[in-house]
């Protein structure tokens, strides 16, 4: 079909499908909030449809701050208001006058009786490296206060500040924490060269969960490339090891820097061919193939 004709059809379809809708207004929200039945679902819809254009912006944001702060409203309604405030934040200049009130609201919600509101508030605060939120999370992890969020979430949120002081805590939790906490702590230690020994130990321990070994191996590839290269070579070729860990190691070699690539000798490439032929795992085959291509590129280069 001719492009001009296609355009005409597109325009005609849009015209035919047009159904005048009115964006929700602050008055609509007030009506739902005071209605006898207190229809939370409809209020959430109205919040999502709330107009944030220039004319309505200030009134809308004030209303949303009020709704999110209101303990008598249902949790889902307050969460919807927080979400729409997040949308409003995508205009930093217009949002600037509300920023201080917003942070204060989030800090109050960080210790709200409702767990989902706490988690939503701490999510937003830690994305801004808020120090009060970080303090609450460290206190949670050190068990100095009642947990504001599950410990694994606390680690994850705290790790967002890469200039933070929580590294020693993460090292400790990576060794001794419960399962989900260890995983988050290991993720948080991605660039920690002091943890290279820990990474190598976990990556090579076949009694550890594959998910943890995978993270540890990838961390080692950054923290100590030469140690990683030696370990990864063994893991990739070890047919008794977990496919997932072998696949992660193979991909990490292929995608990483020069230390690992030095092992890509013709002899190693041959061993990779044998490894690829011996496995049924599609993911492992794909990772080995990626590594073979990297070896071929190195040979050509």
């Amino acid at each position, binding site marked *: 079909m*001719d*492009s*001009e004709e*296609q*355009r005409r059809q597109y*325009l005609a379809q*849009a*015209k*035919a*499908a*047009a*159904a*005048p*809708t009115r964006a929700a207004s602050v008055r609509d929200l007030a009506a739902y909030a005071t209605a006898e039945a207190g229809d939370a679902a409809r209020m959430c819809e109205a919040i*999502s449809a709330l107009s*944030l*254009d220039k004319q309505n912006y200030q009134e809308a944001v004030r209303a949303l701050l009020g709704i999110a702060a209101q303990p008598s409203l249902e949790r889902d309604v307050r969460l919807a208001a927080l*979400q729409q405030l*997040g*949308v*409003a*934040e*995508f*205009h*930093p*200049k*217009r949002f600037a006058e509300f920023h201080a009130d917003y942070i204060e609201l989030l800090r109050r919600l960080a210790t709200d009786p409702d767990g989902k509101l706490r*988690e*939503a508030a701490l*999510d*937003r605060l830690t*994305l801004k490296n808020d120090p009060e939120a970080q303090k609450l999370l460290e206190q949670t992890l050190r068990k100095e206060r009642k947990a504001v969020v599950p410990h694994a979430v606390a680690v*994850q949120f705290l790790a*967002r500040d*890469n200039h933070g002081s929580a590294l020693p805590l993460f090292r400790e939790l990576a060794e001794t924490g419960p399962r989900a906490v260890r995983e*988050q702590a290991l*993720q*948080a230690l*991605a*660039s920690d060269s002091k943890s290279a020994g820990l990474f190598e130990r976990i990556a090579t321990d076949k009694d550890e969960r594959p998910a943890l070994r*995978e*993270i540890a191996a*990838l*961390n080692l590839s*950054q923290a100590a490339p030469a140690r990683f290269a030696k370990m990864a070579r063994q893991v990739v070729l070890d047919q008794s090891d977990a*496919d*997932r860990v072998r*696949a*992660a190691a193979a*991909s*990490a070699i292929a*995608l*990483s*820097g020069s230390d690992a690539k030095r092992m890509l000798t013709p002899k190693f490439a041959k061993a990779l061919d044998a490894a690829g032929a011996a496995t049924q*795992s599609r*993911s*492992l085959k*794909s*990772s080995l193939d*990626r590594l073979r291509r990297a070896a071929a590129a190195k040979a050509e280069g």
Partner: protein
Amino acid sequence: MNVDIRFPAYDAQGRTFVTWRPVEVKLRVTAAPAGAEEVPVRLTSKSSPGGGRLSFATTLTHQGVADLEVRLPANGTEQTVWVGGSYQSPSSRYGDVSMEAHDVASGASLASHPLMVRIRKDANTLTAAERDRFLEALARLNGGGTGPYRDFRDMHIGGPPDDEAHGGAGFLPWHRAYLLDFERELQAIDAEVSLPYWRFDAAAPKLFAAAFMGVPDRFMQVRFSPGHPLLNWVAMDRRGVERGGGVGPNTVPRVVSEEATLHDQNGDPHPDFAAFREMQFNPHGAAHMSHRGGPITDPTRAPQDPLFFLLHCNVDRLWAKWQWVTGIHDPADPRAYDETVDAWPGHRTNDLLWPWCGPDQPDRPPQAPGGVLRDSPITRAPGPRPRVIDMIDYLGTVSDEHMGFAYDDVAFLK
């Protein structure tokens, strides 16, 4: 007898790429039969199954044809034809289409020139091979946190850089330049890759899958399939991708639809850029927030999640589609952009865009990560230090230069 086919530009490996926008191709006969003044030559494309297709014309037009006969001077004088990708027939790899020249009289093949119709596609429609090439290039660009990706992360942060990218009329041109710079870095790694888009007003089950952009668990940790390239993703010294659970494989995010984004309530296209750009809140901001948590929901952190680049590719596609629907491509058209009286630096029509303008420009952020906008072997536009106005006519509809990208569902129209 042969025909030389020469496209306007090639990369270092001798490859050339086109979009829907035709480019000037030079043809020249060599070793023509004695006595001939002209040689009739038929131009067609030859495609692998599922490969790209080409259109040919003697002028710059969207109305190219699949099969064109031209008469080339036997003395070897160059002649121009215009060649572009045939709309809605993109390539999936280099060389899946070639431009062919045949002698009309004998049918003999006189030339065969491979190329690629390289187009930005809906991420949910990529083949496994296209997806994996893109992911691998993305992972290499990230380099486990040490690659050039860091500059892109640092261009889109809080403080003064935030004012460059958001809030004003320059939001769309800035992000167009940002994505183009990013895509060209990916293409420096793998020239066959183009940036796919997340069509956020529809479900995208292939995109939100372990093999592609992953599936978040209860702790907002995105899970990938074993050996996935993005397992090595490091954004801010922390491994992995964090994303809230708001969008699953079958979720249709609650954002304004494409039709409602481009048109007003009467079904007419927004008449000017000023009306169109209100989409910055919805669907753009709403798409970010649809995930309900994680870096992608914060304007100063969003690029820490690689999905960000696919989200913004769709934002840019919507702008491109509005331009197509309205025919407003000319930067000189007052409807094409709206410089408001209160526009701040970076949002006025002739402002250089930061960070590509460099550091220490008056009233602009003092640092400028990443240097100038990455060049392309295929085109000179928009230049290393583009202005706001330079980002409008991306397809070269009114100007002589195109920027080397196009969308699978936005045609070239001239």
